[in-house]
Each structure stands twice: as structure tokens, then as C-alpha cells.
């Protein structure tokens, strides 16, 4: 029971990171972006490449950090991967979404995102192969946190959880304490009114993509660390991340954080009643339940 709860929190942190970016984009640009989860794949693979590169260029960095399988090389690689993934999100917007948006076809954006997701996922498969990969070949044993009840966790997962919480706290401070944070929230709430107040909408859209891409990259790397890296990360996580945004209420960043944890924990607790083969269906059940009981999510507002 406690073990399932812990596993749920660990996967929940990953879903939260993915959902923050998705909920901002969905709110500001008003479309369900099915290609958002592919940013996780891009992030995971970009970090893999940078990690290998750093280890070759600077062997000093190849040492493990304490009990983790993570190395300093990987930490640096994560930073670069966040920047690269953010940049690819901006690029996708330039190449596809902005052009469809300017034609005024709101619903076509969803179509475009599906097409884009298909392209990105399969190009990754073509470039990196369809097999799974790992950041480190060293076996890291799970640490026994307690014997009764038995509680096992990998050090990497705890580090990832701590990093996620730290980043969320930082994001909270930025959103609540800085002018930039106010501007971001203003744009999310009412783009037209925000523009009247001198906020550059185009710039904010770029920033939201950068931020969303960066957090998605982090989520992808953490997922790769606790599971494995494969081209289908995006395909497997797209529905849970959507579920997190819907639980939290589309547009609510705090809702997305909470939604991620709720979906992660619920999916793990569902293992008590459902055989594990059915876990891909759980996010759908959560979505339908939320839509029937509380259609605007925990923190969302009604909008048509």
C-alpha cells in the first residue's frame, strides 16, 4: 500500500512536470496539444546524447554523484537538453502551430498536433532505433527505506522527486513574486486584456513554449532514469498528462501540479483492484470521472 503510494508520487512528479507546460499551452493557445508528450521523448534522447558527449569530452564528469547512478555529465546534459527541447517547442510553433493559428482554424491545431506527434515519434525511432536505452549501464539497487512495511526506492528517483519539488517551488516564486509571473498569468487568463496592458503576446507565447518544453524535457529524463528511454515515451504518457491537466483544470498551473500527483497515485492504487495490464486504461477512467463530476477540474474555470 505505502509502496504503491510512493511509486504514485514518483510518477506523479513526472506527470506534473509534463502537465504544467501542457496546461499553459492549452489555455493560452486554446487547443489540446497531442504533441506535447513528444517533447518528453525529445528531452530524454537529447539528454542521452549530451550525456555521452560530455563523458567523452570530459571524463572527470563521468563519476557518479554519491549513491546515484546520475553523473555530473548527466546533470549538465539535462540543462542543455531543457534548452534544446524548449527551442524545439518554439520551432514546432513557428513551423506548424503559428501558421495554422494564423489561418484562424482553432480545431485544425489539434489535428496538426496529432500529425506532428506522429512525425516526431517516428523520426526519433528512425534516428535512435526502436529498442530501449538507459542512461547508465550500472545497476543501481533500490534502497530499503523501511522493512515493515517494506518500502523500496531508487536513489535516482528520490533525487528526481527532490529536483521536481525544488523547481516547482522556484516556479511558484516566479509566478507569484515577479512582474514576469504576473504577465504570464495575465496572458493565460485573458490574452486580449493582457495585450492592452502592454504585454507582448508573441513574446509570451515563445516563453510559454520554452518553459513548457524545458519542464517536459526534465520529465522525460526523470522518466528515463526511473524506467527506460524508448521512442514511445510520448505515446505512453500523453494520456496520463492530459488526465493531469483535466483533473487540475485546464489553465491552472497549480492544478496541473496537483493533478499530476493525483493521476500518478490513482493509477498506482488502481493496481489493487485491476490487473496491471489494464493500467493504460486508468487515465481514461479518471478523465471521464472528472468530466462527469467536476467538468472544470479542481481549479479550472468554466469556458466554452
Amino acid at each position, binding site marked *: 500500500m505505502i509502496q504503491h503510494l510512493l511509486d504514485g508520487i514518483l510518477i506523479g512528479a513526472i506527470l506534473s512536470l509534463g502537465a504544467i507546460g501542457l496546461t499553459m499551452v492549452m489555455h493560452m493557445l486554446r487547443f489540446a496539444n497531442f504533441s506535447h508528450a513528444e517533447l518528453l521523448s525529445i528531452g530524454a534522447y537529447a539528454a542521452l546524447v549530451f550525456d555521452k558527449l560530455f563523458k567523452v569530452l570530459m571524463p572527470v564528469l563521468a563519476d557518479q554523484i554519491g549513491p546515484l547512478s546520475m553523473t555530473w555529465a548527466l546533470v549538465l546534459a539535462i540543462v542543455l537538453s531543457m534548452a534544446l527541447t524548449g527551442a524545439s517547442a518554439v520551432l514546432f510553433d513557428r513551423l506548424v502551430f503559428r501558421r495554422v493559428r494564423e489561418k484562424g482554424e482553432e480545431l485544425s491545431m489539434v*489535428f*496538426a498536433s496529432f*500529425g506532428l506527434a506522429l*512525425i516526431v515519434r517516428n523520426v526519433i525511432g528512425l534516428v535512435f532505433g526502436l529498442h530501449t536505452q538507459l542512461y547508465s549501464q550500472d545497476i543501481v539497487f533500490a534502497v530499503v527505506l523501511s522493512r515493515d512495511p517494506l518500502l523500496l526506492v531508487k536513489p535516482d528517483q528520490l533525487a528526481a522527486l527532490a529536483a521536481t519539488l525544488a523547481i516547482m517551488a522556484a516556479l511558484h516564486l516566479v509566478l507569484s513574486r515577479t512582474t514576469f509571473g504576473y504577465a504570464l498569468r495575465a496572458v493565460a487568463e485573458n490574452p486580449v486584456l493582457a495585450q492592452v496592458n502592454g504585454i507582448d503576446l508573441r513574446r509570451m507565447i515563445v516563453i510559454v513554449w520554452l518553459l513548457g518544453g524545458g519542464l517536459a524535457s526534465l520529465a522525460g529524463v526523470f522518466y528515463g532514469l526511473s524506467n527506460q528511454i524508448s521512442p514511445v515515451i510520448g*505515446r505512453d504518457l500523453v494520456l496520463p498528462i492530459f488526465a493531469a491537466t483535466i483533473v487540475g483544470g485546464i489553465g491552472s498551473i497549480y492544478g496541473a501540479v496537483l493533478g499530476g500527483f493525483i493521476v500518478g497515485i490513482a493509477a498506482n492504487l488502481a493496481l489493487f483492484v485491476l490487473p496491471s495490464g489494464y493500467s493504460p486504461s486508468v487515465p481514461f477512467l479518471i478523465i471521464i470521472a472528472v468530466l*462527469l463530476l467536476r467538468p472544470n477540474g479542481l481549479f479550472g474555470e468554466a469556458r466554452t
Partner: protein
Amino acid sequence: MIGVISYLVFFTTVASILAIAVLGLNLQWGNTGLFNGGVAAFFGAGAYGTLILGGTPQAGHLGGFGLFYPLAVLGGMAAAGVLAWIVGVATLRLRHDYLAISTFGVAVAFENVMRNAEALAGGAKGLRGFERPLRDALGDGFVYNIAFLLVVLVLLLATYLFLERLVGSPFGRLLRAIREDETAARSLGKSPARVRLTAFVTGAVIMGLAGALYGTFYAFVSPQDVLPTLTFQIWAMLIVGGAGNNRGAILGTFLIWGAWTASGWALSRFAPIEAQLYAGSIQYVLIGLVIVGMLLWRPQGLFPERLVVSQSGQG
């Protein structure tokens, strides 16, 4: 020569079955503006429903009710309709994102349940034990395939005529009115949510019919047949053909299915052995490029919707 003809019969049969599904999607997306991200689920519900109801008894999973074939098909269509109704009731009152996400979710869940529920649908091994109707009279060969193709073509034509009449009817006008300006439609006393639900369920039932025919044709269905890929293919067909135009939808189906099978054949023929594993990935990239490319450069499709200006006294 007979080889070429029987291949053409095979190709036309599958393409016509898919065209029926594309017509169903056209009612939802083209005429009503409803985004269905889970075509595969409704198609699959039709196939599974028909095969479970009309199959012979099998050890290990449900089914084998051996129902009279047309009844089994109706049952499959009803299964697709019920699935659409559940999703529709939960989402159609809400902003359109929710429908897109939920339909996508229902397809994921449907495939997942079919893959795992051995007792319900044979699990990953698929559903066997279905006897194709009239097999005793027509045998298993070329004659049967020709006869089946004729049945499919008749049903495609019937679906086409039904939808053309529907779109031309006051109900069709209402669909377009809601698609273009929901507030205006509501101010005229119409109920957009209910009309949308009707269109969504009708479209799904048509997809169910396509699935039923598909299952009948192969006398087999497995989770492999209801992967999200099917949804993408059917969309590409509609977008290329032209959303809102039923004839365009059918032409788009034949074009895209032709391109899909041709590219699959070319890859298996000319790609080196070690690249064969990746042939599927290449095809998916191509279909993604078709979808995105059409949206960017020709969003109205090759055969755009002909806008009807309805006036009193006209159709």
C-alpha cells in the same frame, strides 16, 4: 491476370470498407466540427461486436452466440453507438478539447481492454471462430470475394446516399449552423449539445458498420486492428479528400489507401533487409507529413466542401 484482378478486388474491398468509416468521420468532423481522436475504438467496437455476436462458440472467451449475420452487424453498430454515447454525454457540453482528449482516451482504453480481457475478446490472440455468412453457398474463393465486394459497395453507396440526404435535410442545415455559430443557433431555440450528440453517435454507428464489415472480411479481429494508426489513416483520408464533402471523402480514401499500400509494398520490396524493421516508422512519418502538410497548404482538401446556400423553398 486473375492474380491482378483478385488483388484489385481485395484492394477495393478494404478501401470501400475504410471509405464507410471516413464517411462516418465526415459527418462528425466535416459537417459538425466534432473532433474524434478515437476512430479506431468505434471501428473496433463494430468489428468485435459483430464477431462476438455472430461467431461460433469458442472455448476461453465470450461469444459464439451464432446470431443471424445481419443482426450481428446491427449489434456491432449498436456497440459502437453506445460507446460514442457514453463519451459524448460526458464531453459534448464542454469545450472541444475535452472531446478530442476523451475520444483519444477511449481508443487507448478500448485497445488496452481488448488486449487484456481474454475472457471477453480473446486478448492479444484476437477473436477467432467466426464463420463468414453464406460461405457454404459461395465457397471461400474468388466468387465469394466478388460477392462480398458487391455487398460492401452497396453499403458504401447506401451510406453515401443516407449522408447526402441527411446533410441536405433541415438537420444537416442545423449541423452546419451549429458548426459555424453556436450562439446564433442557440438563440433560435436549438439545442447544440443534443444535436451534436446525435451527429456524433450517428457517425460512430457508421464507423461501427465499417468495422463490422472489416471483421467479416477477415473473419478475425485482434488488438492489432484497432491501433491508433487506424485513426490517423482515416483522418488523412478525410483531410486529403476534403472535410465536408462526401464524394471527396471517398476519393481521399482510395488515394490514401493506395498510397499507403504502395509505399508499404515499395518499402518491403526495395528497402534493405536491416531497414525493414523501420518500414512502419517511415510510413507513419509520411502519414504525419500528409496531415500536417494538408493543414498548412490546402486545409480545404483536394475536393473542398461545396457550400450550400439554402433558401426557403429549396432543398
